[in-house]
């Protein structure tokens, strides 16, 4: 259809509003409450236009064929001016000191419509007081124009329902439950900051950046978040070589298309410019670190490595690559260990999180990554979340799940703890930790028994169904109930619900993988997805949520002891030949050691260890053992941005650049390769990780040098088929999802369409095996470890971000109310948790998140390291330790 705007004809599509059409054609209509990502409110009325001799709000009025619209008639301008005049009559005119000066729509419009002050008189006295009861956000209701964008982003995008309008009419205000403030007991605010991003005025501002600069002073750099594996795109606001704040990026097709991010992405940047940053290389002499030059440090390391290699052979050296570093750096690191040192013993912390995923999914499907894309969850009709706490650990995905539920999706949550999603689940399952194989087998038992499985899919796309059938026959709901402590009726309900899905998707994380049966757990979920035909289509799949910003990429680029970049096995002669040719050197045939194996061999078979950006003292199981291992090495080199708990044990410490200081790429959990862009210069003498390693390689007589990260990616693309089409010039915008084989390839949104990577999907028979260490009379509690919303991994970054650490400063252990009562422990009291491997003191957090007899500790805290307690027993296939189940004692600390 056609509509007339200002006497010119424009094409219009049904469903488009007048505003849509005007904006699409570059016709300016001012708005305050409108945002393309949010529902239409029609609240500000600034967008009025004249239509059929009436003023109508263009944002709410759908186009009709032949409509006559005037966007700038005298009447329209008069109406807008009056509305603006009214806004100014209730808005402080303190632009000179306002945080939002230069980034305020009211200010812009006042300028445009030439209104210096209100004709109704200026607002001289505040009607409200400023609320700043938390370290993150400041709320100035006097500047609020009640456009409601904050409320809508909270309800529609973030789905936290933390704020809403309260009171009525002129007294209306955006408020919190019971006026307790955003950090109140009844507040559901998670401080994602999206409300601030949406605010068109200075009513909502960030506290940490207050007074540190205004919009026009910032250089803005779009980059990828350094925290979890979601890979949110962020806009760093930089001034004077400092990251001042983090803004949202609105980009269709990105993992966070409507500017979402979590508290860590938004406020966790403080570490970048932290005074603790390493700025010079250090060598430990007589137990003390001394500042040295790069030449001295690198010569020292090169000489020591050559020495170890000469005396003990290449196999006596190992390297930890880093899930925090870029793809290019991981590539360079594994190349260094393989080509320069001459061993395959390079691994990284994926070993501790998703090694079992990589192993399990590769066995079942031929490819060990998230099958589908993050955004697809919103269109799933049944979502099964098991062993994953997305609203805390992958908050942006957590919100997407909530959005799917709003659209009518059903949710099954299986988690030993009462996580936020449990409360939203249609079927909530609290399985006993370590019994996931039994649970999933039980679900499949019901699905097969009741004939609810996808026969066509099973016949056409899979093999070994008979084997599966025979093994799950032994897992009837009653038997499974006895193992898992889940009522049989819930097992049946969950099975029927998942089987009923048209688009059923499975989301899991470390609750599945960090077990000695981690690979079995993953295989079980792969079985379930194949059985119900939920693979190879949009909004289905088996979706491991990866924990680190670039853990996917570190795996992809071969920071694993058994594969070269692109999962090309080191023990296949043609692969070895290919890389020997490319790298111009001899390579080892032998599969190398994994993270825990390397530490176990330290001081014995391993003499030298090069750690880039990892902190095993806090991240690996059995801390006392880890420390002893590090101390027994002849050479420990730690390359990092801080003097971490691990770096304290190093012989040489090399200062590296943070994510904000370098170019490169991260690959997120949905296989999306996204750009990391340099925003500021690295402090002191710190250098890019890849640069340091190349420099070191040169000193070890191996010619390795690149001019840029982009150049490294060119080499990666040549050698890595799944990254074959990845080039920096193609990564502007939303990046590319691997497999992407060539320059022409547009990337892959979801895997296994039509056929699996290795042809047919394989059912695997897995039987339930109990955890290695179960509570007994002495160690009578079952301890789980994990993460929480506000902190990340070993805390090196999040705990150096002042706002976050101020809000959530202390370690804790979650204790069930009944257990606490029995032991006389009050919330907030000091308690001691002891395992066979060590003891830790921490604060008690008493409640009902954990079941009776179970405890939960986050592992982020150096002062109360949960991993001093964990059991290093390994999954035989994936070599992942059983971090989720340890037997411990719990007692009150008498002060």
């Amino acid at each position, binding site marked *: 259809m056609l509509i007339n705007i200002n006497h010119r004809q424009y094409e219009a599509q049904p469903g488009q509003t007048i505003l849509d059409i005007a904006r699409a054609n570059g016709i300016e209509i001012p708005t305050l409450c409108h945002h393309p990502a949010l529902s*239409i*409110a*029609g*609240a*500000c*009325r*600034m967008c*009025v236009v004249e239509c059929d001799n*009436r*003023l109508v*709000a263009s*944002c*709410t*009025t*759908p186009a009709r064929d032949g409509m006559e619209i005037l966007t700038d008639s005298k009447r329209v301008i*008069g*109406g807008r001016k*009056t*509305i603006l005049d*009214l*806004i100014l*009559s*209730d808005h402080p005119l303190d632009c000179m000191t306002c945080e939002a000066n230069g980034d305020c729509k009211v200010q812009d419009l006042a300028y445009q419509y030439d209104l210096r002050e209100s*004709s*109704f008189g200026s607002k001289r006295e505040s009607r409200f007081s400023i609320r700043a009861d938390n370290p993150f956000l400041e709320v100035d209701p006097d500047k609020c*124009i*009640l456009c*409601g964008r904050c409320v809508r982003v909270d309800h529609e995008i973030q789905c936290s329902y933390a704020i*809403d*309008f309260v*009171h*009525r*009419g*002129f*007294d*209306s205000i955006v408020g919190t439950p019971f006026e307790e403030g955003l950090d109140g007991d009844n507040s559901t605010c998670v401080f994602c900051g999206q409300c601030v991003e949406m605010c068109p005025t200075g009513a909502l501002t960030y506290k940490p950046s207050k007074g540190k600069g205004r919009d026009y002073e910032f250089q803005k750099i779009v980059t990828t978040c350094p925290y979890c594996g979601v890979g949110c795109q962020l806009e760093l606001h930089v001034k004077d070589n400092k990251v001042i704040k983090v803004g949202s990026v609105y980009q269709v097709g990105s993992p966070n298309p409507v500017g979402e991010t979590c508290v860590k992405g938004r406020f966790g940047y403080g570490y970048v410019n932290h005074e603790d940053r390493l700025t010079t290389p250090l060598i430990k002499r007589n137990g003390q670190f001394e500042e040295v030059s790069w030449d001295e440090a690198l010569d020292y390391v090169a000489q020591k490595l050559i020495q170890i290699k000469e005396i003990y052979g290449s196999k006596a050296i190992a390297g930890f690559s880093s899930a925090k570093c870029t793809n290019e750096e991981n590539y360079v690191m594994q190349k260094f260990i393989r080509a320069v040192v001459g061993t395959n013993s390079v691994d990284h912390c994926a070993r501790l999180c998703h090694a079992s995923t990589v192993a399990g999914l590769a066995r079942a499907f031929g490819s060990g990554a998230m099958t589908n894309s993050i955004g697809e969850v919103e269109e799933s009709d049944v979502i099964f979340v098991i062993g994953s706490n997305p609203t805390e650990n992958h908050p942006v995905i957590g919100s997407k799940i909530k959005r799917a539920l709003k659209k009518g999706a059903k949710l099954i949550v299986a988690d030993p703890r009462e996580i936020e999603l449990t409360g939203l689940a249609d079927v909530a399952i609290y399985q006993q930790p370590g019994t996931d194989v039994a649970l999933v087998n039980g679900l499949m038992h019901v699905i097969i028994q009741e004939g609810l499985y996808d026969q066509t899919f099973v016949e056409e796309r899979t093999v070994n169904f008979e084997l599966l059938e025979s093994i799950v026959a032994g897992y009837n709901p009653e038997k499974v109930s006895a193992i898992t402590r889940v009522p049989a009726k819930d097992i049946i309900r969950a099975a029927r619900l998942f089987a009923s899905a048209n688009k059923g998707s499975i989301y899991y994380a470390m609750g599945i993988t960090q077990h000695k049966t981690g690979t079995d757990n993953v295989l079980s979920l792969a079985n379930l997805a194949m059985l119900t035909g939920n693979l190879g289509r949009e909004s289905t799949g088996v979706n491991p949520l990866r924990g680190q910003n670039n853990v996917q990429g570190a795996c992809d680029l071969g920071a694993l002891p058994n594969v070269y970049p692109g999962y090309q096995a080191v023990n296949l002669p043609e692969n070895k030949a290919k890389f020997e040719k490319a790298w111009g050197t001899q390579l080892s045939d032998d599969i190398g050691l994994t993270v825990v194996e390397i530490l176990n061999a330290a001081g014995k078979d391993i003499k030298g260890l090069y750690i880039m950006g990892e902190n095993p003292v806090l991240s690996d199981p059995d801390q006392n053992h880890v420390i002893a291992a590090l101390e027994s090495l002849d050479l420990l080199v730690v390359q990092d941005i801080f003097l971490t708990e691990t770096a304290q044990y190093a012989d040489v410490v090399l200062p590296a650049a943070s994510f904000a200081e370098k170019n490169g790429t991260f690959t997120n959990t949905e296989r999306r390769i996204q750009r990391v862009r340099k925003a500021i210069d690295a402090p002191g003498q710190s250098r890019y990780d890849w640069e340091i390693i190349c420099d070191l390689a040169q000193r070890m007589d191996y010619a390795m040098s690149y001019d840029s990260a982009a150049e490294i990616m060119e080499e990666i693309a040549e050698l890595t088929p799944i990254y074959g089409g990845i080039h920096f010039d193609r990564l502007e915008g939303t990046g590319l999802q691997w497999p992407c084989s060539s320059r022409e390839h547009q990337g892959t949104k979801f895997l296994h369409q039509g056929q699996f990577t290795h042809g047919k999907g394989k059912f695997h028979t897995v039987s339930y095996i109990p955890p290695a260490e179960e509570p007994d009379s002495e160690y009578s509690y079952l301890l789980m470890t994990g993460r929480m919303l506000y902190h990340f991994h070993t805390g090196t970054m999040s705990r150096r971000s002042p706002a976050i650490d101020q809000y959530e400063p202390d370690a804790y252990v979650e204790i069930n109310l009944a257990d606490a009562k029995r032991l006389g422990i009050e919330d907030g009291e000091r308690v001691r948790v002891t395992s066979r491997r060590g003891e830790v003191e921490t604060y008690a957090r008493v409640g009902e998140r954990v079941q009776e007899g179970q405890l939960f500790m986050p592992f982020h805290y150096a002062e109360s390291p949960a991993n001093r307690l964990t059991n290093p027993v390994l999954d035989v296939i994936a070599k992942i330790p059983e971090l989720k189940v340890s037997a411990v004692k719990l007692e009150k600390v008498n002060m």
Partner: protein
Amino acid sequence: MANKEILICTGTGCLSSGAEDIEARLVELLKQHDLEKEYPVKEVIKKTGCLGPCSLGPTMIIMPEKTFYGRLQVSDVEIIVEEHLMKGEVVSSLLTEDSHHHPIEDYTQIDFMKGQMRIALRNTGLLDPNSINDYIAKDGYKALHKVLTEMSQEQVIEEIKTSQLRGRGGAGFPTGLKWEFTRKAVGDQKYVVCNADEGDPGAFMDRSILEGDPHSIIEAMTIAGYSVGAGQGYVYVRAEYPLAVKNLSLAIEDARLAGYLGEDIFNTGFKFDLEIRVGAGAFVCGEETALIASIEGERGQPRPKPPFPANSGLWGKPTLINNVETYANIVPIILQGSSWFNSIGTETSKGTKVFAIAGDVNQTGLIEVPMGTTLREIIFDIAGGIPGGREFKAAQTGGPSGGTIPPEYLDLPIDYESLKKIGAIVGSGGLIVMDDRSCMVDVARYFLDFTQDESCGKCIPCRIGTKRMLEILERITIGEGQSGDIDRLISLGNTIKETSLCGLGQTAPNPVLSTLQFFRDEYETHINEKNCPARHCKALVGSYTIDPEKCVGCGLCAKKCPVEAIKGEKKQPYKINSDKCTVCGVCVTTCPVDAIS
């Protein structure tokens, strides 16, 4: 004595004037005089809903002779029992007089009722709302039976369309069209909603219908449900109407038990049920999209239209929403036919309209008149004119969304179009009559104060604009009006009307603009001369004083003063405390010696 019925009005108005005491006394006396056999209390005494003539309450009608007794005192009951019930003699001293001071016995013939034509109010005051049998005895549920067994959905809608019934909630949208839109809207689930969030100050016809004739609404909504294809209905009643909620709840239960609600109604396979949702007292929830948001459990704020509820209403489903009075017209249209209905009224406005008449008239209450009746007929013939022989100054129709009508339009036949032409609206039917003591600036201020307070705050013109208008009006009434204020009010008022999101804001400036249209000189006098011609605005006229020379110390003024501002000793001159005095003028009219000025 067969067919004997004693109808005691227990609508909210009569309850507050003591109807329960009258009933208790009656029961007591029947017992005392051993009349229980002849007059079995449960069968004979009917506690009805509101008949309408509230200022005559408490009222009693004795049937079948239709004898009407009003303004009853407890002591009157004994006379009625002894004379009327025992001897069969009408107590003429308790009858209501007509304008010629003739006592009238038949309730339909008293002045207040004579000029009315009751369609929506056909049953209120005449049956026991808690008795489904009473309703059935008055052809209740016959229309539903007819619709379900004899008529197609299209036929029902055609009938409503032909009747030319228009929405009685205020906007006057053709009801049949609304039904048709909802029927034609695509949706697996549809809803029927009754808007009983009657918020206009003074209007209470919806309350009276729900209190006095709840089954008529249940029946009409069920018919609507059938016609548009909905299985579920909601009645949204404000919490301030507890008796309506109570009577309607009971009626819904009775209708379910009788099979008029629920599964398989009249064995036709049609199922329909009703739920009551109680509102929390926000005026804006009378706006249909805000009402829908409130039913959904969201904050009661209007949503942009389009989409209209007929296409996307409750939970995004096609929803038919009509107000109580509109539904109250449905059953008669089905039973008596659309041509009967559209023969009543004017060219564009068919049927009747219920008005809640209040203010400076002799008889306040609810009246229902054919569209096209003049204001003069309503005020002077039905409501008995202005008390004290004072002069009619203006009438406000449509409550705070409406406008004022000056004396020159007293003979204008009232319908949707005629009122719109002079800047007023029919609205929900509030009708406030003002005599010459009313200050029109203050009247405008009063109404704007109401709407400003009830603005939900969502859109800027309404939220801030009404506040600024109110501030201007306030300063005018205290003598601080500035030159240009009148133009400011007109310009701002027009912008608010043009740019507000919902009907509340779009009509909020009406009382101001309309008083400015007809009484601009009063505003000018306030601003330029710092004077209130109606002697009402206290800051301008100061307070009243008593001339001690003239005062005889009778104390009548002190007795009548509503704010106890007058004190004094008998036979000594009284004094007025000017801090307390609201300049209402009651004392002036009360004083027998004209000592107050």
